[in-house]
């Protein structure tokens, strides 16, 4: 191993790197150090994981609203390993916050913030806040409904801050709601400004820990020991356990990605990430002009108190057993947090896209769902097939580029929303990659009536409607039969209602009737229809299968 040793020696001589690493690893620590101090290292480790996975995600991320959603979907569904990488980043964010808080609780319980370590504590507080801002800004980036509406609420809360509120809102580019500007600023914070800031803060934090030394337990006079390898081994075990939990989460639980953000979706209940739920709930206790108390003043006072802990609790360090008050504060805080979070979960209704419960069905037994479609809806199905809509909307439970049509939000389930959307999708849903559907107005109406008919229960049956039925309905529609006849409750009753017509007449009668109505129904006002053989076949087959109303 002579050559390697030579390289190391060369590096050491030119940079002092080896000495620096040794100094770092062979730092003396109190004999009382041990398992309770492994959490800080885990926090640093999780920051590294976030940087690593975040960088990987950025390689395939489009930093514009709308497109960002498409790119996240691309990462999750089309790139091998993308699901795992995003899972690690998503769950890693939550775990990092938990670990930072646990680290803080440990330091708090031991009173390790006391003189001369006040500055270390306060830098730690800033790190906690930056971690929260990381969570807040990253939350918006996938640009689904959850991200969009969650951020609407956050920016509104920011805006309610006394004096500074309006300026902060302007800084976030969200004077007119969550905008493209907001998105870019969140992205810049999340990926460009905050990471180096955290690196600097962690550097200062560790420098301060080293400067003052790891806080020893009270009365620890035993000979000091070295950081490496025993304590590093314990830190490694802690890191390994946390990593196993993270990796398992990322494998078994997909990071959420709902529908593309829709600023007009009134059915969606915004909810922040779980660790902000307690704040969300606190605000509910303050009504009207007092709301600013819950939204800004109270959290502000809490953060300030946290910063000032070393100056409030100024006595000398005591043994853990005598820190009853500190334990009390932690337990009370934990109880309050749990209570508020639970209350928030209980009182926020789940969103339709999370539980997928919009579907109902009125299909009678014995009749296929497609048999209950009106001719216009069948025309819509024909267009749905012809335009290749299935390519992006493959059906519920299948992964597609477009949304699941059986789970459209209630306010999208109208022709008034769907038809303009067909014409100019990206105008109605910014960022939508759906191409405009270039059809006549009556075709678009038919398409929308068909889409409105879809539910999770009838979808597979409707989609399987045989082609002859669909073709027959097209012949029916293009000859405007509905101006005199009614099928499935749609059309006029000038002529006979055609539901169940197959039980009154046979194929031969129908053909005869189309060719020469007077020969079968003396005195009828129905004109003769000269269908091509194919059209005649289609419309007869279609009419004969019509179920009784």
């Amino acid at each position, binding site marked *: 191993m002579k050559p390697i040793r030579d390289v190391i020696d060369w590096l050491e001589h030119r940079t002092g790197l080896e000495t620096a690493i040794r100094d770092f690893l*062979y730092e003396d620590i109190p004999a009382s150090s041990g398992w309770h101090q492994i959490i800080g290292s885990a926090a640093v480790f999780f920051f590294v994981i976030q940087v690593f*996975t975040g960088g990987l995600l950025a390689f395939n991320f489009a930093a514009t609203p709308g497109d960002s959603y498409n790119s996240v979907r*691309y990462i999750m569904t089309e790139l091998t390993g993308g699901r795992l990488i995003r899972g690690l980043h998503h769950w890693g964010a939550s775990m990092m916050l938990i670990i930072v808080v646990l680290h803080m609780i440990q330091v708090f319980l031991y009173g390790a913030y006391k003189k001369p370590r006040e500055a270390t504590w306060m830098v730690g507080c800033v790190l906690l806040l930056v971690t929260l801002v990381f969570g807040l800004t990253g939350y918006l980036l996938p640009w689904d409904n959850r991200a969009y509406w969650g951020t609407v609420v956050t920016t509104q809360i920011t805006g309610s801050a006394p004096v500074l509120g309006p300026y902060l809102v302007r800084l976030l580019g969200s004077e007119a709601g969550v905008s493209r500007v907001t998105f870019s600023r969140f992205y810049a914070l999340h990926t460009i400004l905050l990471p180096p800031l955290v690196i600097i803060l962690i550097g200062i934090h560790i420098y301060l820990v080293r400067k003052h030394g790891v806080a020893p337990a009270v009365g620890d006079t035993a*000979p000091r020991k070295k950081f490496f390898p*025993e304590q590093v081994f314990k830190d*490694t075990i802690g890191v390994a356990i946390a990593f196993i939990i993270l990796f398992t989460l990322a494998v078994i639980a997909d990071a959420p990605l709902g529908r593309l953000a829709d600023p007009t979706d009134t059915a969606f209940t915004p909810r922040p990430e779980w660790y902000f739920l307690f704040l969300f709930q606190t605000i509910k206790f303050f009504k009207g002009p007092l709301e600013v108390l819950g939204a800004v003043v109270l959290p502000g006072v809490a953060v300030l108190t946290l910063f000032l802990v070393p100056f409030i609790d100024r006595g000398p360090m005591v043994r853990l057993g005598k820190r009853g008050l500190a334990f009390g504060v932690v337990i009370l805080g934990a109880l309050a947090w749990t209570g508020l979070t639970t209350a928030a979960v209980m009182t926020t209704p789940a969103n339709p896209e999370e539980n997928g419960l919009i579907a109902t069905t009125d299909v009678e037994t014995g009749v296929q769902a497609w048999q209950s479609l009106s001719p216009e809806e069948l025309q819509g199905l024909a267009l749905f097939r012809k335009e290749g809509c299935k390519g992006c909307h493959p059906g519920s439970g299948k992964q597609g*580029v477009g949304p699941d049509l059986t789970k459209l939000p209630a306010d999208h389930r109208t022709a008034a929303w769907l038809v303009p959307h067909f014409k100019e999708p990206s105008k109605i849903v910014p960022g939508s990659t759906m191409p405009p559907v270039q059809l006549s107005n009556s075709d678009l109406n038919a398409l929308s009536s068909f889409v409105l008919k879809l539910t999770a229960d009838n979808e597979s049956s409707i989609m399987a409607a045989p082609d002859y039925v669909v073709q027959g309905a097209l012949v029916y529609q293009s000859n405007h039969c509905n101006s005199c006849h009614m099928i499935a409750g749609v059309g006029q009753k000038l002529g006979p209602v055609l539901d169940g017509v197959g039980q009154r007449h046979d194929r031969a009668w129908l053909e005869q009737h189309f060719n020469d109505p007077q020969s079968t129904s003396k005195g009828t006002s129905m004109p003769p229809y000269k269908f091509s053989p194919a059209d005649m076949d289609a419309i007869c087959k279609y009419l004969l299968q019509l179920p009784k109303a």
Partner: protein
Amino acid sequence: MEEKHLHEDAVDVSPTRRKFYILAINGIMGVIGALLAIPAAIYLLFPPKARKGTQWVKTADLSTIPADKPTEISFQRTRADGWQLITEKATAWVVKQPNNEVVAFTPNCTHLGCAYHWDDSSHTFICPCHTSAFAIDGKVLGGPAPRPLDRCQVKVENGVLQIGPPEQHA
């Protein structure tokens, strides 16, 4: 040893424990590193799952293409570009032989991908970048080009020339 500059009064663990600790640290960190590095490499290197763009595009009526003279035809095609399905203009150099056999060349030189053109006077395809020259059948006549011109799949249906995806070259 080399640790003379360190605090000599601090106690150290026994050599066997020390060995075990270092082994465990390296082992665990190695496993974690692999669990991060392997998915990352797969994520970056594996091609995206195929999304279908347009397979065959109808271009021109075969009768409008002159025989024995390369014609650059342009057409619209749809293909997956990252997270988007884009529709773009594409071109191909089409050569129709007297017997109506058709060949379509992709419009990029096989050297470094510059766009070449047909030079009527020398009866060759000429690349302006490094003067690669190709014969009308795509064979390399000169310059640094490493292989003949790449081709697109073609078929003729009802007299209309259809262009498909590029043929895979070795």
